[in-house]
């Protein structure tokens, strides 16, 4: 019979979350997420494969097309890997498409003169610098990540065209190896495994999740919030740099218009994989699934003869639908 202490509105929400089906509860408990994050993406992936296999039995399920899909999704997954970390921390990185192009061009220009190794270093370094710029503007100057990276999207694309003088640059053999079988598979595997370990088995990964889950709790638990935020964008930049190298390798040349709109594809991969934009949960494997979904979707549409204009419409609709399903609306009171 002591005092009725002030009531926590959030507790009603906690109770509302409890009823779940047995399977969903199991999956949710195991990975700390909800069923939208874990079951739906896999189901969507399988459904897509079945649908396209039935619609185009002679062209979709072939070894050649499978290889094409895997290489294409590897590029998306590498770029989306960095975005995954940023999104789990509750922020967003819209600049990755342009950073991919800028890194590719810079790497190619240097590689032509000084060899592939120098090219790789410069490519990754370019991405790192762009990410560092994003991170400092966001974490120290407090410009919202949406705006900073939107600005960088434009800056990096402009620099790409300036540096390349609007001309594609052929890449030497060393870099080209990064974009074809088996090089691209090795690079993607190393990057994704390293990303998964970073997220689950290091303090940095935990801090990322905690910041996305509730930044004040993180800061009151001694998490160096600003440092982690800068590292997050740095990581995203490096991943985009690696994406630029791989993409240039696959095409055989770095082009100034490469990866136009890839930020949307990458974010779509993250969200379709079940990592909600509200932050705090998500994973690298989710993003791999998401990258496969978006790649297969676009690939299937091409095979079915859908025009590229309609593909853009499709990609946009899919992105909005994915957010619609995955967004945890209870977590945000007002959506702007």
């Amino acid at each position, binding site marked *: *019979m*002591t*005092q*009725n*202490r*002030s*009531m*926590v*509105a*959030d*507790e*009603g*929400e*906690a*109770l509302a*979350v*409890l009823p779940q089906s047995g399977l969903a509860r199991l999956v949710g*408990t*195991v990975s*700390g997420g909800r069923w939208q994050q874990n079951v739906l993406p896999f189901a969507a992936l399988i459904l897509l494969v079945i649908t396209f296999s039935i619609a185009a039995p002679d062209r979709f399920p072939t070894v050649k097309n499978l290889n094409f899909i895997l290489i294409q999704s590897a590029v998306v997954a590498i770029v989306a890997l960095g975005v995954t970390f940023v999104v789990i921390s509750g922020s967003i990185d819209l600049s990755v498409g342009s950073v991919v192009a800028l890194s590719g061009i810079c790497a190619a220009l240097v590689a032509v003169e000084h060899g592939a190794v120098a090219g790789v270093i410069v490519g990754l370094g370019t991405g790192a610098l762009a990410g560092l710029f994003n991170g400092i503007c966001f974490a120290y100057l407090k410009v919202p990540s949406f705006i900073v990276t939107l600005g960088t999207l434009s800056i990096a694309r402009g620099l790409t065209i300036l540096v390349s003088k609007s001309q594609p640059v052929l890449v030497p053999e060393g870099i080209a190896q990064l974009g074809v079988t088996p090089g691209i598979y090795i690079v993607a595997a190393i990057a994704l495994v390293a990303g998964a370990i970073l997220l*689950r*088995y*290091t*303090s*940095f990964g*935990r*801090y990322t*999740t*905690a910041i996305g*889950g*509730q930044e*004040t*709790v*993180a*800061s*009151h*638990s*001694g*998490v*160096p919030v600003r440092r982690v935020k800068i590292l997050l964008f740095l990581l995203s930049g490096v991943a985009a740099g690696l994406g630029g190298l791989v993409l240039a390798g696959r095409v055989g040349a770095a082009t100034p218009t490469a990866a136009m709109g890839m930020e949307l594809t990458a974010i779509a991969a993250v969200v379709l994989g079940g990592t909600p934009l509200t932050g*705090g*949960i998500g994973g690298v494997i989710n993003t791999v699934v998401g990258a496969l979904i978006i790649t297969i979707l676009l690939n299937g549409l091409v095979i079915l003869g859908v025009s590229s204009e309609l593909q853009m419409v499709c990609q946009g609709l899919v992105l909005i639908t994915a957010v619609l399903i995955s967004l945890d609306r209870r*977590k945000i009171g007002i959506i702007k």
Partner: protein
Amino acid sequence: MSDQPLLQIRHLVKKYPGTVAVNIQPGHGVSFAAGSIHALVGENGAGKSTLIGTLGGVVSPDERGISLDGVAFSPKSAPEARDLGIETVRQDSGLVPTLTVAENLFLGRESAFKKAGFLFPAKRRALAAQALDALELHDVRPNQLAGSLDLERQKFVELARALFFNPRVLIVDEMTASLSRRGVQRLFKVLREQAARGVLIIYISHYLEEVFELCDRITVLKDGTVVTTVPSGDVDEDQLSTLMVGRSTRESMFHEELRPEESSDVVLRVDGAGISGAFEDVSFDLRSGEILGVAGLVGCGSEELGLAVFGARQLDAGSMQLDGVPYAPKNPRQAIARGVAHVPSDRDTHGVVLRMPIAENVVLAALRWLSRLGFRAPGQDRHRSRDLIRELGISCRGPRDLPLNLSGGNRQRVVIAKWMVRDNRVLVLHNPTRGVDVGAKAELYRVIRSLSQAGQAILLISDDLQELLGLSDRLIALRRGRISTEFPKDSSPTEELVVSHMI
């Protein structure tokens, strides 16, 4: 006026998960007469906010029997309550700072100057001028941005907004907290005029002297129920304090424990500390194994004091020493490195990450020391937190469960578990048992006691007097940011005595 009361609350129940905020049963209700100034008093959490929230249409109760002017009253929204003639001036600011005064005055009530969907700003300005004139607010211009006004003028603009539509009931909730002495007198004058015109004023204030000066009748709330309603001439401040806090039975949740040695070391020394606008000239010593209680009303500065010790706020004046060494943490990270921990009042936004597994929450603050070269396996954390889950009796499905799925008391235990991975020098507790049911409270008290016996120096900031008196070895009371008194060891003050130093 007939003798039928204007507003009658016969029956009102509002439950929140784990707690009953208001429980007014038939026969124990309260009636309010037109033209009277009627005070609602009670401790933090007595149910005042829920009650006026119901009247204002922002809280929907589980059960209600309320009538306004003899007609059943059950507004579904704030606008509906306003249309029925109930206006509220709230404690926190109710103006949109980026809109003009005139826009604020008629926000949601644009129909007064709207024709066929179009607004007529000139008409709005004229009406606004009229509303401001009625309160003699000559130094406020209708076109001024509300955010450019000082707090006192903002509150009066809110009052003008409430009065312009000729309410039958005006609820004034803790408005004087943001007013100067002159502002308070001006407010009283307005309220008396309105009462003379037949408006019912429901007045809420922590400051009892104001209540006695202004109000005709006083209703005392405690633990969500109406204790009594009396004419203000029939009681004095002491009697009122007793009615507010008096309890028939003392719970047996506190045990007389071994008190710390007189000679134990001073761990934390706070010397002349101040943060402008929150507290000033606060000094005390906190010894190893001691629980120092801080009593005070909401807004007395105790919360900021706790945050300053934890490095989440910085002192403007004075200094601190930890273990004899100067201590000026710039952020919680530095405080934690020196062994200072903080259990916040709002555990859901400051204590735990609701959607992160318990195991990861528990080690979050200690990860710096647990990880090797930045690496840390989740398995080790689950192992570690399993012990703490058992030790603290956290009921959950295991270390991978989310705090989101736990009750308030269990969430709070997760927060405490977080600070048990490493030993602290100083543990700041702010309302450690808020929103926790009775059984869980006793369990938390046992944990706090045992941490103290292990030698941690505990600063206990609480709105719960019983908790303060039961746990603290010493007690300081804050009144408007200053230490008003200190109750030394073994002085065993009564609740009434402590309250008299808070208000």
